[in-house]
């Protein structure tokens, strides 16, 4: 066996807590390098553990979080991933509704106002155009009703054919 393979096998054996296979042991008997490798592999975890623990000895008791820590974002964080996703979507939807509704309402109100204006304007124009007009002394056209005319079509028929004549 080659040293490289032996060292792999030694590590496998150490990981599984068993003695190396006979072929590996035979190699170890005559290869000082691999033998030393095997010895160190077996012995260093204990020494390393001791050394690390010695350094950890001075660390003292763990400082556990106080009651205040429980409230810090824990409600959201403690939710499952699916619930959090639902909460995020719901919040986004609420935000969208909050932004879109006032805009939609404003647009609706504006369109109603525009409709009122259109209707009133057209009524006024209609009324203006349908009124019997009379040429007054100063040459202006005025609604014949202001001068005693009637809304009756007979006013037109009885007059010049264009404007209602003021009644005496």
């Amino acid at each position, binding site marked *: 066996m080659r040293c490289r393979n032996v060292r792999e096998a030694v590590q496998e054996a150490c990981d599984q807590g068993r003695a190396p296979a006979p072929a590996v042991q035979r190699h170890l008997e005559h290869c000082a390098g691999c033998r030393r490798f095997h010895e*160190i592999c077996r012995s260093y975890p204990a020494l390393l553990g*001791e*050394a690390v623990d010695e*350094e950890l000895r001075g*660390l003292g008791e763990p400082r*556990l979080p*106080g*009651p205040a*820590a429980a409230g810090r974002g824990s409600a959201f*964080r403690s939710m499952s991933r699916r619930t959090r996703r639902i909460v995020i979507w719901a919040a986004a939807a609420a935000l969208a509704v909050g932004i879109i509704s006032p805009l939609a309402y404003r647009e609706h109100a504006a369109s109603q106002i525009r409709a009122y204006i259109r209707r009133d304007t057209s009524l006024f124009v209609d009324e203006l155009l349908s009124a019997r007009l009379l040429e007054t002394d100063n040459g202006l056209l005025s609604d014949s009703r202001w001068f005693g005319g009637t809304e009756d079509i007979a006013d037109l028929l009885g007059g010049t054919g264009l404007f209602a004549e003021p009644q005496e």
Partner: protein
Amino acid sequence: MAAEPEQRCCGAVGPRQWSWRETLKDDRTLIQEFTEQGSRAAFEILVRRHVHGMRRMLYGIFSGNREDMEDAEQEILLALFQNLGRFRGEASFKTYLYRLCRNKSIDLLRRKGRERRVLRSYSEDRALLLLPGASEDPEEMAVRSSERTEILECLRKLDRDERTVVILKDLEGLPMKEISRIMAIPVGTVKSRLHRSREKLVQLIEGRERCAAEM
């Protein structure tokens, strides 16, 4: 649980004698008590049970820098306290904790950008920590201290992931599968990294032995 432990677990926890019933409870029962009933005592037992392993891992990650280890420990315990409700029990609690430990430590290292300073400050910390105890034979203590110092020096020469994998396998005795979950790498990578780390470590130890023999 009585009201008394509720008050005790704010801040540093003093030595406390738990009843045998409490200490015999398994991790899942303690987690259930903490998440469902809000039992801080259960959380305290859980932390005390695993804090040593967690600190060993932190030692590997931070190469023994005490200040960073303490900062990381605080962050880990806080995160654990706030997020334990999300533990789904798919892996063991130990795996979950060590994973949290690794992630928080990496965050901390990134945030502080201290990875280089860790190595510089290490030797000062170590000099304070390795003072001999009064009860032991000074000569024997010196030899052991020297051995420990040497092996820690060798460990320090490995990179962070190599140190972590060696500590998780050889000190904590975790199976490869759990280490792969903790480190978020495939089992094969864990194995090859572990073998490479050990070979490196053994070479470093042998190198130091040779140097000592030549002197």
